[in-house]
């Protein structure tokens, strides 16, 4: 048996699964205290379907804590950035183009020092230990213990970043240091940005992961705990403490993969309808399509791979305004107060949910309370909702051919049985907890990052052997061989080495066997 838990900004969802079967589901409000929420979720599952804690083999947790901390600029540690690159790079110091809110939360503690490498491995200037030591002393004097370190061309040569880390740890006892070559790829500003975000989340990561783990142990479950990453794979709690940025956007990834699993589709559009907004994305061969351009997180530009999800201000709590002639739905929403404010629940605000009940799409709350709504207003309002969603479906699709559309999330009731551009509309069972199911079916990955010489070897051969090695690693990590796919290939030329060397990074991911007789994976 496995447990998947998704801790969202509003709701915490949990599922108990055995093989492909969902044994129990539970939904509860996310609590300010992390431990309480997980304890409540596990207790909820236990009530819904009693299970011996010892029979749980794995607990997978997806969390938006870290994304939300950045978006809300809350609970972030004051963080210093040390960049090695002078005299280059001074035109655009660290945190250039960051939103003011985040700058205020982290402080503007940027230190530019000499060092860094040229593209061909020569140094831009010598590493100056005295300079770094002085910067470290200044950081320590400000009482800051969290530092992000970047160096020009550190993906080609990481030595100076590691030297700087050593000095920082020497001068600042207990310093938490994030190094850019471990976080991102070539592109100094984007890599440095991701490193700063990682660093400022470090303390929070300690707190959160400890709380998550102890909540699971409190329930008597001794099974290993994994955390969801943005690419749909799992990481250990220990790894998450070091690299909390890896959790960014794991929510949409889990939700889309959960939807695919529930509906049995591999190529489809997924609409996750919430209370205030809906997310629309597309799955291609079972994976969320990735955004092609740089991704902003809380207004900070990074070069992470992120699922390409279009948000729209339309959900179950969207406020309906105007009359039949000029009706609007959203983006204003009563949000989580829907249980008090929607007409069907005894409130005084006309919401999208009220329209859906009046149109006979669903039966929640007191249907009689919407009997008096203008029929034309209901018709036009519902039409508007379907049009907005159809337009989004059209925008995320890769071709004009109709695709299956899978609807998940609490607001699924808003969607009619037909949508333009959809070959069929699927509202699978357990749709309200697709996120948690996505976490529970998360995959394991294998990554190979190595320098190969192309002097006496064709590039295609070299790539193929690295690909095979990555697949082997994923299988060794427990993935089913038949499910493993290559999700990322990156080449960095290392022109300074003789014999046409390139650094090749390949990532392969695959499904964990879900148990049961056939080990079927659902994909």
């Amino acid at each position, binding site marked *: 048996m496995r447990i998947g838990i998704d801790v969202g900004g509003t709701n915490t969802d949990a599922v108990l699964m055995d093989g492909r079967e969902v044994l129990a589901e539970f939904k509860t409000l996310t609590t300010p205290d992390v431990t309480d929420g997980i304890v409540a979720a596990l207790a909820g599952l236990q009530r819904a379907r009693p299970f011996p804690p010892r029979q749980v083999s794995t607990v997978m947790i997806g969390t938006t804590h870290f994304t939300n901390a950045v978006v809300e600029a809350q609970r972030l540690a004051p963080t210093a950035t040390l960049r090695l690159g002078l005299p280059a790079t001074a*035109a655009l110091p660290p945190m250039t183009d960051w939103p003011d809110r985040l700058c205020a939360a982290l402080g503007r503690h940027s230190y530019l020092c000499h060092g860094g490498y040229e593209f061909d491995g020569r140094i831009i200037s010598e590493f100056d230990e005295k300079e770094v030591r002085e910067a470290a002393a200044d950081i320590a004097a400000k009482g800051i213990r969290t530092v992000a370190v970047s160096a020009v061309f550190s993906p080609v040569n990481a030595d100076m970043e590691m030297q700087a880390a050593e000095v920082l740890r020497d001068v600042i006892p207990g310093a938490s240091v994030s190094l850019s070559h471990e976080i991102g790829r070539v592109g100094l500003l984007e890599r440095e940005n991701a490193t700063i975000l990682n660093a400022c989340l470090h303390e929070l990561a300690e707190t959160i992961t400890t709380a998550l783990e102890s909540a699971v142990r409190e329930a008597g479950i001794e099974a290993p705990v994994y955390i969801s990453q943005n690419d749909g794979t799992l990481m250990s709690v220990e790894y998450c403490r070091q690299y909390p940025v890896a959790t960014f956007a794991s929510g949409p990834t889990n939700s889309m993969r959960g939807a695919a699993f529930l509906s049995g589709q591999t190529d489809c559009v997924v609409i996750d309808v919430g209370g205030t907004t809906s997310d629309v994305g597309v799955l291609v061969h079972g994976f969320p*399509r990735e955004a092609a351009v740089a991704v902003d997180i809380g207004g900070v530009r990074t070069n992470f791979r992120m699922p390409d999800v279009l948000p729209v201000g339309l959900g179950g709590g969207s406020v309906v305004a105007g009359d039949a002639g000029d009706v609007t739905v959203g983006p204003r929403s009563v949000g989580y107060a829907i249980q008090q404010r929607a007409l069907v629940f005894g409130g005084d605000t006309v919401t999208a949910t009220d329209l859906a009940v009046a149109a006979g799409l669903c039966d929640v709350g007191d249907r009689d309370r919407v009997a008096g709504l203008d029929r034309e207003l209901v018709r036009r309002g519902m039409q508007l909702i379907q049009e907005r969603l159809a*337009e989004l479906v059209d925008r995320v699709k890769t071709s004009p051919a109709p695709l299956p559309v899978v609807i998940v999330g609490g607001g699924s009731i808003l969607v009619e049985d037909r949508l333009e551009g959809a070959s069929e509309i699927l509202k699978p069972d357990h749709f309200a907890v697709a996120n948690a199911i996505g976490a529970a079916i998360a995959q394991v990955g294998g990554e190979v990052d190595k320098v190969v010489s192309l002097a006496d070897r064709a590039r295609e051969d070299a790539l193929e052997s690295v690909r095979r090695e990555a697949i082997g690693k994923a299988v060794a990590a427990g993935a089913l061989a038949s499910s493993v796919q290559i999700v990322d290939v990156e080449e960095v*030329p290392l022109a300074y080495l003789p014999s046409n060397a390139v650094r090749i990074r390949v990532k392969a991911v695959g499904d964990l066997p879900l148990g049961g007789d056939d080990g079927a994976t659902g994909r």
Partner: protein
Amino acid sequence: MARLVGEEDLEDLARGAAVLGTGGGGNPYIGKLLARQAVRENGPVTLVDAAEVPDDAVVVQSAMMGAPTVMVEKLPRGDEAVNALLALQDHLGCRVTHIVCGEAGGINSTIPFVVAARTGLPLIDADGMGRAFPELQMLVPSMLGVSATPMVVADEKGNTVLLRTTGNRWTERFARAATIEMGCTALIACYAMKGHQVRETMVLGTLTLCQALGRVIARARAEHSDPVQAVTEQLNGHAVFRGRVADVERRTETGFARGRAVLAGLGSYGGAKLELNFQNEHLVAIRDGRVLASVPDLIIVLDSDSAEPITTEEIRYGFRVSVVTAPCDSRWRTDAGLALVGPRYFGYDFDYIPVEERVSAERDRP
């Protein structure tokens, strides 16, 4: 008419410049940040039409030289371009009165704004190519006999190299060698010319075109219409392919980012394959073995949904892109123009055929 260009105009300008950059010309985001910083510190830049520039004006081109893959990593110190200009002015022995853009693409459309903002000199609405090209002699003024030298190459360490050569091909070789030694990025001041030569030899109005391109993309996104189509119409071009990047091979070689990308067709292009060859910029697009477009015509790669221009250093496995081709400045289609920037110059064994002829031939295929 002279007009002021401020911080709020730079977004459209940088995005439009990246469209004309045809994959090269350097990272537009970094170019935008550098220009924004300079405009914030020094106030808006005065942009003037070539028509209002006095005949005897002293005009200098300001640009970045090197491999775009390096520029995104080794950012400049900030004053290199002004140092290059001042060193050139010293050598010329007379005051520079105007700045002009050498290349309407990527970072090189915005670097002149940095120099104009920092020096207070007016910037002329023109460029030397009407697009981006990888080499220094690939300018219409070069074809028409204007010398790139005297020229100054400057780095972040404070080095400046003055070049005086017998021809622009030599200038390219020496300047490229200096740039590689400087770490594959440098800032340059070159092609000093008189005001009347700007009118006679440059491609006029390109900065305004960049801004217009940025604006149609922004408008199409806001109106949820197709921004790729908006770009195609603005350039009088053709949308020729849509697909997903299946492979990218790239190397930093002799100071350039060289390589190729293979796209697997999507939608109505399903089953088809498009290969893009680049040297900083896209040089040739080959569909299923047939040349679909080549230099000097423009081969533009855009994100299929947002029409965000994708540079050759950014393009990655899995991206979904659309390819748009557009005709180049007509002077590039002369024998002299093709000798400088035609496919044979770049080592391809075929003759140039204008892109509109190739597109209609493709359309007539059974």
